[in-house]
Every structure is written in structure tokens, then in C-alpha cells.
């Protein structure tokens, strides 16, 4: 028995609260097969099928176990009819087992969640390569993993570019709404959380498509194979219900990565400090009323709405000339690194701007990019 399996066995017996029973029973039956304990595996998978008769992977394993009484088994799904879906079911089994055997290093975190404002209680991170969605709780800015779920992504994989490409987007989105099963067809199962794809950065890249949701599964199947959706992130219905308790419509960030970049706490700290410092220097340079110092924080490719860098610079120079003093306060700062782009960040905050002739509060989202070693603002949206 390998170390990984032993670890998995311990995990199974310690029964992590966030792991669904079905998930645990399936893994327990696979574990029993790996240890040649077939009667126990059959017993477990029978119980699983009794509660989840539409769990296709469980049915396939049961078929194998019955077959293995009479002849040697050649592979997982030996009892199944050869089809393209069989490979996908095998992949589902692999991904579910990986979630148990490849325990994540507890001292490492996804590189993305640098800092979250206090009112955002959870953030979701999807690792497409592992078919897994992780829920992180925001404990005073420090992300702590509290749950994870098997998920299905787009049938063509990750990296959505255009409508109908059957891909799941890579990026940072916000859960902005919920649709109950009554508003939806059976296809969406126990409900749907809508996402803000395409965000302003996607739009700037010319990415199209809409209706990227996190939703449940149709009644004819407990779960869907790893790559099956048109771009949505799909969970088993009971898992979607469990996920619901972490969701805040309008707030919960969802980071979708091809493969999560896991980093140590210290690395996260230094990245956070670097970006937070850049943001604060931008703030104080703005207060200095020196347009040159302020504009040095913007990339030549900067855009805000219809304004490009030249138009923005001209307006700032003009406005600053009329100021005798400026004060800028930033609250509810959120700092997130972008998936698959280590030198790219999404910064959000509530800006309290005061000056001799104008005061206002604005919620802003800025995309920052490290250019020649220096963090610069490439895109800004005022909400």
C-alpha cells in the first residue's frame, strides 16, 4: 500500500465534514478495490447506489466488481460498453481519487487571494486541471480552505475566447446572482449562481459569450464527467446546495485557473506587500498634485471607458492644476493576482476623494500589470 493511499485511508476515517457522503463512499470503494478487498468495495458501492442511483461512475464500478468475481478485470470500466464517455468516466474516477490521495500542502495557498475586504466572507478557486473547486474562508484577510468539490468544466477545456467555444473562462469573476430551480430547466439541477463573465478585461480582449454559471446537474445523472459543459462550472446537486452557504451574491469572488499556482504564506505576504505598497504610492502621488508623479503609475496602454492614456493624462493635468489640496482615502481594499498571469492583478477599493473644490466616494476596479519590474495601472473602472 502506498503512502498516498494510507493518507487517503486516514482522511476517509477522519471524515472531513465538507466532503460529501457520496464522494467519500466512492473513494472508499475505489480504495477497497486498490487493496483487493472486493466484497467490501461492492458493499460500499451498493450503499452508494441505493442513495444515488444515478451516480454513473458508481454503477460502472459495481459492474466491474460483479465481473471481477468471474474473470480478471483489465481496466476500470471493463464491464462497460466501449464508448468515448467511458474514458471520461475513468477520468472522473481519477480526478475524484486524486482529490483524496494528492493531499494539498496545508502550508500553501493559491497565489491569487492576496487580500480580501472583511465583508467578503469566502472566495472560490477553481482548478480545472484537477476538476476541483476550493472554498476559502476570509479570516481577517488570510484565506483558509474550508471545503472543496468535484466540478465539471467546458467540454473544450479552459480559456474561453468566444461565444459557443464550449470553454470555461480563465479569470476573476464575481458571483452576481442566483437562479432557483423553479426559474430553470431540469438541466441546471438544484440551482445556478451567475458570474460576471465577460469582465471588463475580457471585453477589452474582445472575448465574447455570456451565461457562464456555477450550477447543478440534471436529474438523470448524479455528476457529469470532467469535461462536459458549454463553459459553465457544474457540481452535483447536493454539492451545489452545500456550496450555497458560502455564497454572497454581488460579493463572492471566483478565481478560475487552469492549474492553481500554490505558494507558501511568506510568498503571498511579500506579493501582497509589494502590490499594497504600489497602490499606496499611487494614492500619495495623487495627493501630491504632481501630475507627472501620478501619471508614472499608468501604463501607456491604460484605458478607462473610452479614454486612452493620452486623453486621461491631459484631463488629469488640467484637473490637478486647479487643486490647492487633494486627500485620497482607500477602504475595503481587495488585492487579487490573476490566474495564469503572475504579473497581473485585479485591485478593488472604495475611494474617498476630497479636494478644495470636489469630494466624492467611488468604488473602483483597477487592473494592474507589472511592466519592466514596476506595477502599473492598465485599466480602471468606476462602478
Amino acid at each position: 500500500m502506498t503512502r498516498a493511499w494510507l493518507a487517503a485511508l486516514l482522511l476517509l476515517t477522519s471524515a472531513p465534514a465538507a466532503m460529501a457522503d457520496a464522494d467519500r463512499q466512492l473513494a472508499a470503494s475505489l480504495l477497497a478495490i486498490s487493496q483487493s478487498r472486493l466484497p467490501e468495495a461492492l458493499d460500499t458501492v451498493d450503499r452508494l447506489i441505493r442513495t444515488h442511483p444515478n451516480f454513473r461512475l458508481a454503477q460502472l464500478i459495481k459492474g466491474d466488481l460483479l465481473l471481477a468475481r468471474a474473470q480478471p478485470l483489465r481496466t476500470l470500466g471493463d464491464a462497460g460498453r466501449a464508448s468515448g464517455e467511458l474514458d471520461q468516466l475513468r477520468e472522473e474516477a481519477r480526478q475524484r481519487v486524486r482529490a483524496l490521495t494528492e493531499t494539498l500542502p496545508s502550508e500553501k495557498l493559491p497565489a491569487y487571494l492576496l487580500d480580501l475586504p472583511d465583508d467578503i466572507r469566502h472566495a472560490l478557486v477553481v482548478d480545472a486541471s484537477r476538476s476541483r473547486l476550493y472554498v476559502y474562508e476570509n479570516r481577517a484577510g488570510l484565506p483558509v480552505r474550508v471545503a472543496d468539490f468535484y466540478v465539471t468544466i467546458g467540454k473544450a477545456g479552459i480559456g474561453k475566447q468566444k461565444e459557443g467555444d464550449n470553454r470555461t473562462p480563465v479569470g476573476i469573476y464575481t458571483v452576481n446572482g442566483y437562479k432557483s430551480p423553479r426559474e430553470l430547466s431540469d438541466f441546471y439541477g438544484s440551482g445556478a449562481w451567475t458570474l460576471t463573465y465577460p469582465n471588463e478585461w475580457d471585453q477589452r480582449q474582445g472575448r465574447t459569450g455570456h451565461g457562464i454559471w456555477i450550477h447543478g446537474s440534471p436529474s438523470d445523472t448524479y455528476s457529469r464527467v470532467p469535461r462536459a459543459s458549454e463553459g459553465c462550472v457544474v457540481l452535483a446537486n447536493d454539492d451545489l446546495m452545500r456550496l450555497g452557504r458560502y455564497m454572497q451574491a454581488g460579493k463572492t469572488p471566483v478565481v478560475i485557473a487552469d492549474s492553481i499556482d500554490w505558494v507558501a504564506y511568506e510568498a503571498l505576504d511579500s506579493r501582497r506587500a509589494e502590490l499594497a505598497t504600489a497602490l499606496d504610492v499611487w494614492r500619495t502621488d495623487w495627493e501630491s498634485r504632481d501630475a507627472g508623479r501620478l501619471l508614472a503609475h499608468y501604463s501607456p496602454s491604460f484605458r478607462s471607458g473610452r479614454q486612452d492614456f493620452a486623453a486621461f493624462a491631459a484631463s488629469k493635468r488640467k484637473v490637478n492644476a486647479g487643486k490647492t489640496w487633494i486627500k485620497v482615502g482607500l477602504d475595503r481594499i481587495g488585492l487579487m493576482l490573476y490566474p495564469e498571469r503572475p504579473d497581473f492583478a485585479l485591485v478593488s477599493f472604495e475611494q474617498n476623494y476630497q479636494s478644495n473644490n470636489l469630494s466624492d466616494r467611488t468604488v473602483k476596479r483597477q487592473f494592474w500589470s507589472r511592466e519592466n519590474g514596476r506595477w502599473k495601472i492598465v485599466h480602471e473602472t468606476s462602478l
Partner: protein
Amino acid sequence: MALPRFFAAVALCLAVSAASAQSNEVQDINLQFRKGDLAGALARANTFLAKNPKDAQVRFLKGLILADLGKTNDAIALFTGLTEDYPELPEPYNNLAVLYASQSKYEAAKNALEQAIRTHPSYATAHENLGDIYAKMASIAYDKALALDSKNTAAQTKLALIQDITGGLSRKPAVKPAVAAAKPAPQPPVSKPVAAKPAGSIESAVNAWAEAWARRDVDAYLAAYAPDFSPSDMARADWEALRRARIEAPKSISVDILNLNVEQQGTTATATFRQAYRSNLLSSTVTKTLKFAQIDGQWRIVDEIPH
């Protein structure tokens, strides 16, 4: 793979050793083998076979001795010879399968068992062993499909060599040796606490066990268990090796015992608790029951049951 050895009387239903003097000699060799004098038994078997090269029982016995000596390939050659000379006997096929399985040659093991069943369709041992081989092959197929590391799983098959030739008449599967864990005798429903052993000593036994584990003191940890303790699916030696590897691998271990609940019945006791295990490699919290029995005045663990 550990090949459990046990003694079974040489069956008399097979008249391959005619003369009674020869029969006595066969019994003597068997006795010597049973006592563990492998070299002596082998020498006598060889002497006997020099005079009676075709004798099935002594050849069979020699195969068992070779297997016990770890000369698996020689034993395979010997049992193969027996299957060629006595194709109607299922036992040599069965033992051939066990030896192949010990070398992880499951396809060959399967074929040998199918031969045994072909000669004697009702031969229960071969059926059971074939079931085990199928289970092993299923495990390998799944590990491969799931991209899991399957090395070192050979120890999981529990096939035992058949120790005598009965021509497949024996319906009873191979019986394990009588050294199996001596479980504490069932206790009467009403029992008085034993004054000499206050219940507190169970708590200290649990703590001593947890502390030895946390210190990574494997010898002290293993000493907490009764000499005949062994988990149901594993030989004691395999279990000890596994525990040693598990305890020595992490750089640091802490084991906290929470909510300890002790029930004592005379010279046996049951301790149930939450076990919070933490190492640099793994953390887990489980509920566990340890069953204790008094052995030589010491509380020793006779059973360990995770919930």
C-alpha cells in the same frame, strides 16, 4: 508475500506410498519439516527421492520445504514437474499458483488455478484462491486506470500453500495456523472491578501508547500491543514494518487523546477516544477504540478499531 506454514496430516487416501516403512519415513520427514528443521527435512527428502524418484508425496513435501526456504523458483520447478507427472492432482497446481502469486505473476497463477479447477471443479481452495487472484488483478487494473502507484501491494494477497495431497477431496480450505491472535475470553455480563488494578492504569496505558508514538519510539510503541496482536488483514511482521515506516517517516509527530472514555471488565478494558494526530506530513482526527487485556500484569492492546 508471507507464506503461512501449517501442519496437516499426510493424507492416506492417496496410495502413492505403498510400503508402511516408506510411509513412516514420509511421516518422519513431515514431522521434521513441521518442527522447522528445513535443512534436515530437505536432506532426508532428497535421500528418499534418490531411491523413490517418482514418489508424489515426498516430492510435494520437498516443494513445501523449498518454498519455506525461500527457494521459490526451485519450488516452482518441482510443482511444475508434479503437475506434468500427476495432472489429475489439483494441489500441485494450487501451490504453483500460490508461488506465482508471490512473484506477482498473476496471469500464470490464474492459469494454474484454472487447471486445478479443471481437474476438480469442486475444489474449494482453488476457487477461493482464484477469487483472490481476480481481486488482485482488479486492484492492479484499477491502480493502473487511476494512475495510482501499485507497487508493494503483493503483500495483500493471502494465498496459502496447500500442505498435503488429498486429490482434491478436501472441501475445507487451507486453515491458518493456530497462532492467530488469542482474543480475550468473553467476559460475563456482570463483573466486579478488580481492586488491584484501578481504572486509572488504562488511562496511563493509553497515554504511554500515545506518547511513545509521538516520541517516534517504535519499540515502545509496539510494546504497547499484545504479543499476538495483529490486524485482520495483515501479518504481524508486515504490520510492524508498516507501523515502523509510518512512525519513522515524519520529522515530528504529536498525538493528542481527547474525550477518553474507559470501560473496564475485570482483566479486559475498552478505551474510546478522539485521536488528534498531527505530523509534518499529515493531520487527522479520528475516533478510535483500543481494547486492552492484562498480560503479565500489564495492560496491552489486543485490538485497535478506528470508527
